[in-house]
């Protein structure tokens, strides 16, 4: 079939301007496909990074113990211990589990924490806060605390506290000043403000404070164990499977972030569906363009097809010539469009450098190979109808034209 390839190539090079226009049309379609892939993929990355990026991808929380009950010999409940306001449940064996979890494939960081509620008091100002005790050195393991610091440092130590900008403003606190933090259990500590952060999340900036794990142990009277283990993954999309693996490994109730993000997942899914539609339309445009151009070529070359048939070219040969033209157009258009798309995406920031106000185009999600493959397949499919029409040309009438 080398000869059919030669004829197909000759036909394409014989009308250079027409072929160039056709390839350009296909390339534009491929460019749109790649651009949409990069945009939809980048947008999903951006949304996830903004919404989930600073959250724990998998969380293990201490399960509250069921309240004790007193049952009569007849089986009636006589008394129930009221649920304590102060949470006492803990993951007592955290020290054993943390290295195990850290060794699971895909896990980027493991942060054992003690969390609870408290009140922060400075003078007459009192604010209700959520307290998170983390191990020094792991301050930015889950939330990028270092990245959000506006004053001071995120490093935690004994007697130090890091809090949000809004809370600092509410309490009129400046770096180095002291503040009283009382836990819901009534234990109080006087802490020195070592750092102020601003995440842009209003609720967090006004009510979350970070202390060292040892400070939190004192505040919440938890001499050993932790109340929560937060886990960050390299790929947040792998949360479901990794959570299952951790559950199997530790027996703990590892909850992936997706469990509480059904609406977000639906929105991302809808966005992806929109992308598929747009990409499908781009492919349909390519197929229609190639099919119409080749049909025109078939009509224009009817006499030549008739001569070939008279000289002994079979129908299969004629089909191969036209299908090969379609494949070559698809390949050239696919490669050109992919190169065009890649070049156009190069100036945009990488996924790690997405910033608000810029188009989150992810050059790594251009689906270049898929775009080229689908274009070639689409162009081949588009050429089948013209090729069959060419093979059906009656040599007698075609030569007489």
């Amino acid at each position: 079939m080398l000869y059919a390839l030669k004829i197909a190539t000759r036909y394409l090079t014989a009308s250079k301007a027409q072929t160039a226009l056709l390839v350009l049309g296909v390339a534009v379609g491929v460019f749109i496909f790649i651009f949409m892939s990069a945009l939809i993929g980048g947008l999903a990355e951006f949304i996830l990074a903004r919404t989930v990026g600073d959250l724990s991808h998998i969380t293990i929380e201490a399960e509250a113990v069921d309240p004790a009950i007193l049952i009569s010999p007849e089986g009636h409940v006589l008394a129930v211990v009221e649920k304590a306001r102060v949470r006492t449940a803990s993951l007592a064996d955290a020290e054993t589990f943390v290295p195990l979890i850290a060794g699971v494939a895909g896990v980027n960081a493991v942060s054992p924490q003690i969390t609870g509620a408290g009140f922060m008091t400075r003078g007459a100002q009192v604010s209700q806060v959520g307290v998170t005790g983390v191990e020094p050195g792991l301050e930015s393991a889950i939330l990028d605390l270092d990245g959000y610091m506006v004053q001071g440092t995120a490093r935690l130590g004994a007697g130090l506290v890091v809090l949000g900008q809004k809370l600092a403003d509410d309490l009129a606190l400046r770096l180095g000043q002291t503040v009283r933090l009382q836990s819901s259990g009534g234990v109080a500590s006087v802490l020195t403000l070592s750092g102020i952060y601003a995440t842009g999340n209003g609720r967090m900036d006004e009510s979350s404070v970070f202390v060292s794990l040892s400070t939190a142990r004192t505040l919440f009277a938890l001499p050993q164990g932790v109340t929560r283990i937060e886990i960050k993954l390299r790929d947040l999309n792998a949360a479901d499977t990794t959570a299952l693996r951790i559950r199997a490994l530790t027996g703990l109730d590892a909850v992936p972030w997706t469990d509480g993000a059904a609406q977000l997942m639906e929105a991302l899914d809808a966005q992806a569906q929109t992308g598929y539609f747009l990409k499908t339309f781009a492919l349909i445009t390519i197929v229609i363009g190639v099919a119409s151009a080749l049909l025109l070529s078939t009509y224009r070359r009817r006499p030549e097809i008739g001569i070939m048939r008279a000289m002994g070219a079979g129908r299969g040969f004629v089909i191969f010539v036209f299908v090969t033209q379609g494949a070559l157009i698809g390949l050239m258009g696919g490669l050109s469009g992919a190169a065009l798309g890649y070049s156009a995406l190069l100036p945009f920031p990488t996924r790690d450098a997405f910033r608000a106000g810029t188009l989150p185009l992810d050059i790594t999600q251009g689906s270049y190979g898929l775009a080229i493959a689908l274009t070639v397949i689409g162009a081949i499919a588009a050429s089948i109808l013209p090729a069959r029409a060419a093979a059906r040309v009656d040599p007698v009438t075609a030569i007489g034209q």
Partner: protein
Amino acid sequence: MSALLEVRDLVKTFGVGDAATRVLRGLSLTLEAGEMAALLGPSGSGKSTLLTILGTLMKPSSGGYTMLGQDLIAAQDSELTAFRNLHIGFVFQFHNLLPDFTALENVIFPTAVREGRETPSARARGRDLLVRMGLEERINFPSVKLSGGQKQRVAVARALMNGPELVLADEPTGNLDRVSAMQVMDLIAQINREEGTTFLISTHDEKIADLCRRRIVVGDGLVTG
């Protein structure tokens, strides 16, 4: 000489019902191997239809056709395509060269399409044929840049490329001036003499017919002389 081909009671009807036109009305003909015959007759007598059927490009409505001992009426399209490629050459009135190809590429087309590629031996034979046609300086010329006479000589070379037993020529000189026409006919006569290729040449030109050793006259869909 032995019979190269034989047609018996050929009938060809175009259209149906009241619009039906019977072009061949039971025509019978035998061509011997090595013959050079002129096919004569007025326009509409059925000459071109007969050539088309003999060239296996069209099947008759009824009748028999055997060539080289093969029943070509019963053959499938793919079998006829292969048969045509090997055993029959065509020369048309309007040369009908492939415009995007050179003279040599046009000549070797019948071999290349059979073998799936342009082999060195095919190129060598194509060159020899073009030299024989007096076109040694036009071998790699684009076919569209050749003169009418040159194009027709390329067409003759193409018809001879696979060494066919039969060459069907439909008014091969009808579109040429007298000098070019005689050049083409001299070449055909030479090949007929030297290689024994059978030629059936449809023509209105008595001078062209005079160069042939046999005259077959067709009239009203039958051989009349």
